């Protein structure tokens, strides 16, 4: 049977070696489809009922998908590896509703800072580095309203899920705009900018930074600033109307398996697995184990909670205004 998987492109689930092994082991054939934004992902499930068997959903969106009845509860007893998932993640209220599991935590990561190693003798520790006039025109951030605003919240010492002082965020971000070279929207953008030595510092995803260093051998390293960072959790769900639930379960289980994870990290570079066993299978000094597993770090990071449409639109309005003002 076929398992239709909807995920970001190049995000583990489409690694040829993994798929090959999975297909060999379970007899299911994997068909990958990709999205470029969460909204698009939702649209795709909405307009293709019954097409997908597995969908990767950021935990912050799980609630919305469930409310729209786009996804179905998952029988976690069919997933042997589910037991190894760290309790704080497996029990997340973002994924479990009415005692039913709607999302299986897969990996988590950070939106933190990444630096061009060539531009720094010593890695910076503060988020304020981005505002340093020395980096004028050599800063890059993602073209994403929610992320930008939450980032501003961190820079102004606020809770990203409960921003009280929007004006402070706006002022902070306004003063950042002139520093910026351009906005990135894909890993490739970031990597190209570094490769051609056009930037010093910018926001980046932890998994991507890892990939840039490990896989592409670029002079990139991740910095988790002392003010904190935005964390996100990605989880797998099974869309309502899936025609191959069994295959979907097998696939999800495969994805949270330590064996796959270790291979993924070594060959490609990846975020941190939600499976504690998987993380433990990494070498002691692995970044995902040593830094990301550091309790000091854990204290500093803030997980993204779901946000309402109204908030999202307000963030977008703010973001667009900032971009227009800088023109």
């Amino acid at each position, binding site marked *: 049977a076929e398992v239709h998987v909807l995920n970001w492109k190049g995000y583990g689930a489409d690694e040829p070696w993994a798929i090959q092994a999975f297909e060999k082991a379970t007899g299911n054939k994997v068909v990958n489809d990709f999205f470029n934004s969460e909204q698009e992902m939702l649209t795709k499930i909405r307009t293709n009922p019954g097409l997908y068997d597995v969908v990767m959903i950021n935990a912050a969106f799980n609630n919305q998908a469930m409310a729209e009845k786009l996804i179905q509860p998952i029988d976690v007893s069919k997933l042997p590896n589910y037991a190894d998932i760290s309790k704080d993640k497996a029990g997340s209220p973002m994924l479990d509703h009415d005692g039913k599991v709607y999302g299986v935590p897969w990996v988590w990561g950070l939106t933190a800072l990444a630096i061009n190693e060539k531009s720094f003798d010593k890695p910076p520790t503060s988020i304020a580095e981005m505002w340093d006039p020395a980096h004028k025109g050599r800063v890059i951030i993602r073209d994403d309203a929610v992320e930008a605003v939450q980032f501003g919240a961190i820079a102004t010492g606020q809770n990203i899920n409960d921003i009280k002082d929007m004006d402070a965020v706006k002022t902070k971000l306004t003063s950042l705009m002139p520093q910026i070279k351009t*906005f990135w929207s894909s890993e490739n953008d970031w990597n190209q900018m570094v490769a051609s030595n056009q930037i010093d510092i910018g926001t980046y995803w932890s998994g991507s930074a890892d990939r840039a260093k490990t896989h592409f051998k670029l002079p990139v390293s991740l910095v988790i600033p002392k003010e904190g960072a935005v964390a996100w959790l990605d989880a797998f769900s099974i869309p309502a109307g899936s025609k191959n639930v069994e295959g979907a379960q097998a696939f999800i289980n495969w994805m949270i398996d330590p064996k796959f994870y270790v291979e993924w990290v070594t060959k490609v570079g990846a975020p941190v697995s939600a499976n504690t066993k998987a993380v433990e299978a990494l070498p002691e000094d692995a970044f995902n184990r040593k830094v990301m597993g550091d309790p000091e770090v854990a204290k500093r990071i803030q997980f993204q909670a779901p946000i309402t449409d109204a908030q999202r639109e307000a963030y*977008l309005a703010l973001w*667009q205004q900032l971009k227009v003002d800088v023109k």
Partner: protein
Amino acid sequence: MAVPGATASRSGQRSALPLLAPAYLWLTVAIFLPLSAMVFFSFMTDLPLSGKPWAFTLGNYAAFFSQSLYLTLLLASLRLGLEVTLWCIVIGYPAAYVLAKVLKGRSREAIFLLVILPFWSNGLVRIFSWAMVLREGGILDTALNAVLPFKINIDLMYSYPAVIIGLVHSYVPYMVLTCYLTLQAIDDSLIEAGRSLGASRLQVLKRVIIPLSLPGLVAGAALIFVPVVGSFMEPRILGGRTGTFYGTVIEDQFVAVFNWPLGAALSFILLAVVLVILAVASPVLRRAA
């Protein structure tokens, strides 16, 4: 030359129908009906698709007027469209003229096709290549510094000029093509007649050739101006910080916040503005012809 409706008047609708029907049926099914659905959505508070309650509203259109942002961006986009169109005319028209009236023989056909060909490469790949050329330490920078005795820093990337360059590059073949089509049809004896009456080449160009090639010029200008006003890909990638335009905010509504009703309303406002501009321009242009 064109004698409008010389053979026409009599037959009208009935004769036109079989020729028009296939094209317009196709357009109806694949564009007009879907867009009508969008028009419908643009008057809703929310998409029915999303499973949330919805109601009719004019709010999406009101949003355009309540926030100065949209108007600012629309004007910026119109200016962008105008500038790109002008550059395309400035660059493309002479090339079309040379192709149509100066070059003769085989090389003409070959060059003509060569002009179109870049078009067949992927737009994104082309934009990335431009980044390579325009950035600091890129091809242009290196090449100029190799030639010039003094050191200059060329970093056009992520700026308004970069957007213009990228868009002009993408659209200039339209202008070359459409102008060529009408220029080539101008009888040489008209040019000769103009010069025998004492008009210099430039005057002949202005008074005879341009008016006669106007249909092509107008078609080309419309085919460039219209999509450029709504473009978002090139501005986003090449414009960097300054690359926010009307098209990009529409894109945001669709991609980032899933507010299709607002996105649709914004695009229909754009469409209306563009159509009004074309409608106002066409009689002016016709009079010039």
